[in-house]
């Protein structure tokens, strides 16, 4: 298992390797996938979860923030899908799981750029599912509700509570809720499931 992020990771597990890089840096990303091919010969699953958010009213959102969010969330996800598919298509296919968000279908005020970037991920997921289908690669996305992570650390408590009220099951998500959907997408029996966006908490 190989993980990557801009900063070093504290996560440790047997067989886990970590690579520090900017997910939108094409040269570095290609190098990483090349090293994975060299070392492991094949790639079976990509969990494409790198993402950043910035909660702010559009009138107060600097263009630099917009570019940063699009670079990481859209360009980074695209690059990883493309490079992962190159490794998967020369093997026996594979599974790609992208990360969406409930902020997109809920049209959350204050999250215009983040939600728009994830709308792009949804479309990317559905089109890549078709483009990669003949290579036995499935492409799906999971759309989590807010989870207690750094991503929502700066969001006011009342804002999160308002959001939770709009879910069918009004609670924060847990890592296991997300892991469950990923497990479903990557299990062998799910080979006929592709192009799907599964939102948690009863959001649609």
């Amino acid at each position: 298992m190989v993980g990557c992020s801009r900063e070093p990771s504290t996560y440790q597990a047997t067989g886990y390797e970590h690579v520090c890089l900017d997910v939108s840096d094409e040269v570095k990303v290609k190098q990483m996938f090349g090293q994975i091919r060299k070392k492991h010969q094949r790639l079976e699953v990509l969990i494409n979860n790198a993402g950043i958010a910035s909660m702010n009213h559009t009138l107060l959102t600097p263009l630099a923030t917009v570019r940063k969010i699009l670079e990481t969330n859209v360009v980074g996800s695209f690059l990883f899908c493309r490079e992962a598919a190159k490794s998967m298509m020369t093997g026996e296919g594979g599974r790609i799981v992208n990360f969406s968000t409930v902020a997109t279908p809920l049209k959350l005020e204050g999250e215009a750029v983040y939600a728009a970037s994830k709308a792009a991920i949804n479309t990317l997921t559905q089109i890549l599912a078709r483009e990669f289908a003949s290579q036995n690669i499935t492409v799906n996305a999971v759309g989590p509700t807010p989870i207690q992570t750094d991503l929502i650390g700066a969001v006011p408590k009342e804002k999160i509570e308002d959001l939770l009220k709009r879910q069918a099951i009004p609670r924060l998500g847990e890592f296991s809720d997300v892991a469950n959907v990923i497990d479903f997408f990557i299990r062998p029996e799910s080979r006929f499931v592709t192009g799907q966006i599964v939102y948690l908490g009863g959001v649609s």
Partner: protein
Amino acid sequence: MTKKERILRCVLSAVDELNEGLPRAKQLGKTPEVVLFGEQGSLDSLGLATLVVLSEQRVEEEFGHAVTVADERAMSQHRSPFRTIETMADYITLLVEEERN
């Protein structure tokens, strides 16, 4: 062996792997002048994409660094570098030379 010959060998090795997944009637010939795409070409867009990816991987293994064959310049050229096996090898040679400089 020259750099161009090494790259041609990479592309031909990619053709071998591509042919393994194609019915005999659709398999590509293995000479430099074989037309890949467009008029008289034997590959569809997916076949060409697969050949490009396999060639990139062979070149990376041969020279130790990644190249992006389907870059913006390749896509905007009036005469596509993906027309024949030889034009593709020429284009990859150019990319590898530029990478070295």
